[in-house]
């Protein structure tokens, strides 16, 4: 399929801009103008619509296929949230409006969304205050670590290292590093949990804190979580909770109760906002009481008269990490989701997410190596090691799934499991879907045994087959100039 620039026809008109109703009174001088027009495509509206409609049909999405991509919580994205995000009262609201005199009063509806979300998320996580500014999970992590650093600066602590388990998501070490910390990797034990003895050895006065997701990326709940947090606290370190896995405990348990001090949530995971082909998301960060002063500027507060206002006077704050109030339209969608589900609904989400994961785990463990045999939470991690005997890798299983109409699980993460296959079904998928998936996985295990070459050739039914990634990285061709 041609790229859109290749379809361009000189002189063809697309959407007509508004008509001019003013004279041109000043002409910008030629030196300041571009020498030739930007080479945008020249296409009719139908050309453009057809191009992108065709592109869309070359994607799998949650609306088209089961999408058990581990660590990503690809649950159903309610259509009502899309509709509400498009309400003109939200979509057409300029973010600088509150900065006009008494401007807060012009945006009370939007501020109420932010205020309520702050409270809801505090209640769900056991934190004392949230910032809605972070624009994704990793951005939340960076914000959290910046708060950690601000705390230590404020106390005069000299801290240089952040501890992160080897099973952690790559964003964790990356976030800690760009915030200026040295990262130390804590090994996992044989049960797939953090090796507490090792941790103890690694912790010292330099330790700024620990970053952890719980359940961890193996889908396993860290049974020593309280102890782990205490160890960190014993050196005045802070415990950071990577909330990408909150779906496993939402409405059931609180990271705050485990001992965490800082939490980020991925609203685009647990709270059902669409993943958009790789974003936008939102990664609000919550903190316990002693850290509230470090949260970014601004926060929404309630005045005595019940109206809401933005508070800018926060001397200890880490400052601004986003231009305004975060990805508001995403936060809004998550707000809609929480309102619809309520207390009982969220608990049911957690229970069914966990049930679905365990159901898949139990049904497949005869066919695929299960490195850590125990109850899992929202996801389960297999290994394709058995299949390796015939030269079949996790990636081949993935491509076989594609051929059969499933989005593959996450493969090769977490890295501590060889040939890992990380399956997260989510609660919005039905037993029928899981059963078909399970059957297909079993079928693939059999094909891996009997006709491995067939799997190696998959997929054949897609617009393209396996692509040459090495060539891509070598002959860098990343833009049609």
């Amino acid at each position, binding site marked *: 399929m041609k790229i859109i620039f290749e379809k361009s026809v000189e002189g063809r008109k697309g959407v007509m801009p508004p008509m001019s109703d003013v004279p041109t009174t000043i002409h910008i001088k030629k030196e300041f103008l571009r020498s030739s027009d930007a080479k945008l495509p020249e296409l009719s509206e139908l050309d453009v619509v057809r191009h992108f409609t065709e592109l869309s049909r070359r994607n799998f999405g949650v609306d088209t296929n089961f999408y058990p991509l581990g660590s990503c919580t690809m649950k159903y994205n309610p259509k009502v949230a899309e509709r509400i995000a498009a309400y003109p009262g939200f979509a057409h609201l300029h*973010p600088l409006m509150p900065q006009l005199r008494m401007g807060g009063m012009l945006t009370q509806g939007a501020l109420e969304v932010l205020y309520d979300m702050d409270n809801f998320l505090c209640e769900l996580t056991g934190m004392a205050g949230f910032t809605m500014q972070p624009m994704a999970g990793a951005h939340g992590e960076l914000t959290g670590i910046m708060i950690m650093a601000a705390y230590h600066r404020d106390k005069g602590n000299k801290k240089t290292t952040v501890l992160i388990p080897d099973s952690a998501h790559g964003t964790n070490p990356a976030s800690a590093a760009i915030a200026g910390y040295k990262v130390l990797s804590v090994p996992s034990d044989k049960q797939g949990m953090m090796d507490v003895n090792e941790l103890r050895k690694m912790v010292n006065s330099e330790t700024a804190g620990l970053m952890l997701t719980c359940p961890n990326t193996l889908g396993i709940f860290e049974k020593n979580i309280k102890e782990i947090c205490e160890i960190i606290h014993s050196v005045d370190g802070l415990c950071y909770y990577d909330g990408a896995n909150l779906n496993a405990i939402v409405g059931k348990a609180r990271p705050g109760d485990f001992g965490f001090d800082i939490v980020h949530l991925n609203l685009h995971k647990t709270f059902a906002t669409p993943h958009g082909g790789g974003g*936008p998301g939102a990664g609000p960060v919550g903190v316990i009481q002693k850290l509230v002063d470090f949260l970014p500027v601004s926060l929404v507060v309630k005045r005595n008269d019940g109206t809401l206002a933005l508070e800018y006077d926060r001397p200890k704050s880490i400052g601004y990490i986003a231009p305004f109030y975060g990805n508001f339209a995403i936060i809004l969608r998550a707000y809609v989701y929480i309102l619809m589900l309520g207390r009982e609904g969220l608990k049911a989400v957690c229970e069914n997410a966990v049930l679905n994961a365990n159901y898949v785990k139990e049904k497949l463990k005869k066919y695929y190596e299960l490195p850590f045999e125990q109850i899992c939470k929202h996801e389960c991690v297999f290994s394709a090691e058995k299949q390796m005997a015939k030269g079949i890798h996790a990636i081949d299983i993935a491509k076989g799934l594609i051929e059969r109409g499933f*989005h593959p699980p996450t493969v090769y993460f977490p890295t501590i499991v060889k040939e890992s296959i990380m399956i997260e079904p989510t609660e919005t998928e039905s037993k029928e879907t899981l059963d078909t998936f399970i059957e297909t996985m079993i079928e693939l295990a059999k094909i891996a045994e009997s006709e491995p070459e067939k799997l190696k050739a998959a997929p054949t039914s897609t617009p393209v087959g396996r*692509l040459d990634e090495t060539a891509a990285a070598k002959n860098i061709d*990343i833009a049609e100039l």
Partner: protein
Amino acid sequence: MSFIANTQEQQKKMLSEIGLSMDGLFSDIPKELIAKKFNLPSGMSEFEVRNRLAELAGKNHIDLTCFLGGGFYDHFIPAAVYAITGRSEFYTAYTPYQPEISQGTLQAIFEYQSLICRLTEMQTSNASLYDGGTALYEAMMMALRITGRNKILIDDSVNPIYRVMIHSYTKNLSIALEETKNEQGLINRKALLEKLDDNTAAIIVQNPNFFGCVDDFTDMAEAAHKKGALLIVSCYPISLGILKTPGAMGADIVTGEGQSLGLPMSFGGPYLGFMATKKDYVRKMPGRIVGRTKDKQGRTGFVLTLQAREQHIRRDKATSNICSNEALCALTALVYSSLLGKEGLKQTAQLCADKASYALQRMTSIKGVKSRFEVKWFFNEFVLELPANAAEIAGKLIEKGFAAGFPLSRYYQGMENSLLIAVTEKRTKQQIGMLAEALEAVL
């Protein structure tokens, strides 16, 4: 309403098949860590939620005629943009790790990268960053990496919102961040050149700058390069419909806020940070990159490439921690730009400039109202010097139905009477006239 698929019946059946109870599924969590209760409201039906949210939306005053800008603009968005980006195959997918079933997203990102290069006249671009502010921060970090230096120069004509962000991000890092004070609404060339030295990683400037003024930074690029430093330019993509490009000026890294390319204002996001750079720096870029390649049958396809820069491979050595970005917003910008096309973008840019210049003329015909700066060249924003406190006057104009502009005192000392007014192609001559009349009335 919980969107859970399985019935109670099915849940029971599944539990019995795996030999567990619902509580049993959580037996791995220490009992005392299970929360007793959550103080949250009960669930609601869609009808109730829509009513509630419609009520909240109604409390936001979008009825004001909007002359606010400051880097975020009320541009016209064609209906086809929504129709296309509303295709659920786009928005319910995630990062295209599996290229065979993600060619839609991947090709779109490749096209988006191409678009950004064409707009800016640069050679490479990534798949998007969070917003214009973090994009500028990432550019700064990238310049530090490339040069191995640790001093950054930034003029205060760069969006103050971005400047406070950069200050925040660098608090825990040992970076020498030096600001210069603008000269009559343009960068302070003299001060910048004085500060530019062998330890300078980059100079950061913006075009059109925060005051709407238009400049040519070719001289700054040359000066920077002479000292081994980079020039980072933050820009406003609609303006690139007519303005000289950062690429043509010799910029090394170009960033900007893509909101103007078809994204609604949405009270601050989601927006779109874009970044473009020179070919040589591609491996130093943060974020995802899509590349074009072939399958075994020789069919062209697209994949995520150069992943060795990224967090999931390099962990603490990655060029950035970014993972989810603003893919759907990048798609939106691509769709918007494709619909407008070459001619449409140029016309839109010209309209903005024409209407702004008409507006300045109209406003300065009011007694006591002047242009704050003497500069002649601006794009779609300008600073008015009022005979009284700008924040107060803007406050009074709210009652007349206008979000008349952004009072600059918040960020600039000595500009208490200055109001930053933005005019897009959506503002009509009539609305401009009405604002002028209202302004005259409240002065």
